[in-house]
């Protein structure tokens, strides 16, 4: 199924995206230090696919998502959507694009205004974009949307705290969908949910994708969830993508040492499957300050001398499988 989706031109092209945060030091006289949340991410996103993004906490997954929907402006790089570079658009010029790029946040509760009823929350984007001025029709649109995500008329006038976690996430999804977007960035949308509710929401995402031909960027740190939902997977480490390939491929044939370690850390599916743990020793390096060489160099079991001098580029190592590791390509590195 992946092949079919990947055909054609990408809907979004991310080119060498960088995001730095200035960290002001608490000591006198020290210049502010730079936190590289994203250090050169390049990705293509194809119409109708789900791109899973996995990585340790703090590796820049959310930052990537926020840059995509222009919640934060990246420091450098381009995000091409339908040929337009979003990073160069002014806020007002962005407004029509916003309609097509939506986001669902991790915490279904805190991303809903506690003082807005379901109806008010879902119709807000319609009002903002002036899509439906007639309040009766708007109500119908909202109701249709609610039904779409498996809620009903009795839920319309309730407040967020009166819903279960799964229901809240459904409201979030409905709110994102009501603008009929093309791309939805899902930032850990099921991490806060219970397994059985998680299953409900995941099912909802799949069925909506089919019906509306949506494109997802699905961020999570749960590998089994990513495997279930994604067509392709990007593994991130310390602000860069270190491996990118089809979802099945990554589990069957992980190439990057970090991916291997990540996979081996997953708790087993059954008591009888005692996996060999591949642990990375040492602490995760800090994203603050400039880093020379491969970010994993300090913890990598297969490190080579070159690793601590140059940063490997994300390079195709087999058809549809890219990795950023000198084990597979010696020459390609990122110019700092």
């Amino acid at each position: 199924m992946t092949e079919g989706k990947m055909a054609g031109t990408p809907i979004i092209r991310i080119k060498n995206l960088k995001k730095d945060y200035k960290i002001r030091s608490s000591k006198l006289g020290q210049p502010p230090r730079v936190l590289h949340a994203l250090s050169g991410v390049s990705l293509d996103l194809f119409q109708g696919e789900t791109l899973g993004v996995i990585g340790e906490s703090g590796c820049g997954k959310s930052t990537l998502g926020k840059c995509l929907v222009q919640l934060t402006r990246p420091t450098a790089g381009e995000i091409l959507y339908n040929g337009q570079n979003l990073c160069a658009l002014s806020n007002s010029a962005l407004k029509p694009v916003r309609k097509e790029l939506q986001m669902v946040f991790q915490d279904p509760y805190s991303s809903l205004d506690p003082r807005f009823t379901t109806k008010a929350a879902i119709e807000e984007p319609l009002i903002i974009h002036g899509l439906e001025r007639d309040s009766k029709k708007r109500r119908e649109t909202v109701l249709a949307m609610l039904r779409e995500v498996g809620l009903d008329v009795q839920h319309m006038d309730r407040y967020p705290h009166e819903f279960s976690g799964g229901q809240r996430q459904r409201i979030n999804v409905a709110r994102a969908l009501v603008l009929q977007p093309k791309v939805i960035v899902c930032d850990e949308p099921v991490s806060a949910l219970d397994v059985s509710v998680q299953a409900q929401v995941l099912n909802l995402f799949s069925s909506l994708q089919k019906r509306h031909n949506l494109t997802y960027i699905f961020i999570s740190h749960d590998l089994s969830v990513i495997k279930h939902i994604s067509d392709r997977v990007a593994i991130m480490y310390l602000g860069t993508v270190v491996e990118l390939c089809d979802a099945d491929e990554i589990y069957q044939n992980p190439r990057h040492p970090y991916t291997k370690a990540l996979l081996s850390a997953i708790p087993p599916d059954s008591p009888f499957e005692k996996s060999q743990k591949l642990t990375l020793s040492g602490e995760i390096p800090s994203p603050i300050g400039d880093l020379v060489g491969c970010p994993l160099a300090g913890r990598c079991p297969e490190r080579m001398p070159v690793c601590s001098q140059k940063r490997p580029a994300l390079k195709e190592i087999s058809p549809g499988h890219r990795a950023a590791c000198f084990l597979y390509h010696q020459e390609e590195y990122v110019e700092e």
Partner: protein
Amino acid sequence: MLKTILKRLVQLVPILFVVITLTFVLTRMIPGNPAAILLGPQASPADIARMQEELGLNKPMLEQYVNYLTGISQGDFGKSISYNRPVLSLILERLPATLQITLTSMVLAVFIGVPIGVFSAVKQYSAFDYIFMILALVGVSMPIFWLGLMLVLVFSVKLGWFAVLGMGSLQNGFWDVVQHMVLPVVCLTTIPTATFARITRSSMLEVVNKESIKALRARGIRESLVIWKHALKNALPPLVTVIGMQLASAFSGAILTETIFSWPGMGMLIYSAVFNRDYALIQGAVLFIAIIFVFVNLIVDLIYLVINPRVNYEGGGGTA
């Protein structure tokens, strides 16, 4: 730390500029002619005009303002017209007297108010809680003059324990000073005590529900330590802010108390300055309080650093 201090000191400049301008404009907007007030009812218009000239009040506003600003930048706060003395020396002369009672009452208020607040929070909705919180409200809403005069009637006139008024002096022994201080200090202590008790209570109530406090109990830490060491330290930030604000306003808040007890401090100075339209003195006093205010805020921020290691003092969020 040092940077915070420096930054706050730099911030002092705009605040002081605002205060100077504000006082200047506001004091000039008060109707009434200082010269007329100074000379009293029997003065003739010619006398008043002459006096005005002498005081430099007939110069254009802008010129007066510029003069005042240049004066201040050279450390000259101007001259009080009613006292006929430099404002700065007047203020510095009064400050110790005010400090003497305000600091004492602040310290007392902290040592009485905070424990009451803690007990009230720990025993929320108990009789203790209700009684002390109502007492606290009584404390806040008690007219100071009433309290002051009642205290005098009972403790000075009837019992003869404390002095009626005045400051006393060390020449007559330490006890004389204490005797004079007791009643004004009690008057000044009621409101802050009540405020501290209430703030402590509400802050504690928020803290005692925290996971980290529950975790301490789960570890078998003694309840007294949980409350008085951990919860209290966690509950301190809003309290410190309020203490800071109370302290800063205590310098002027003592107006009523100081006039009742003829306590020669800042409060009395401001009181007479306002009624005499002593522009330079009002401006100087307010400016001085503003400086104190900024410094107290600075100290509050520094205390924050000590009591709350998480505080992001670069974030610029207001503290008070």
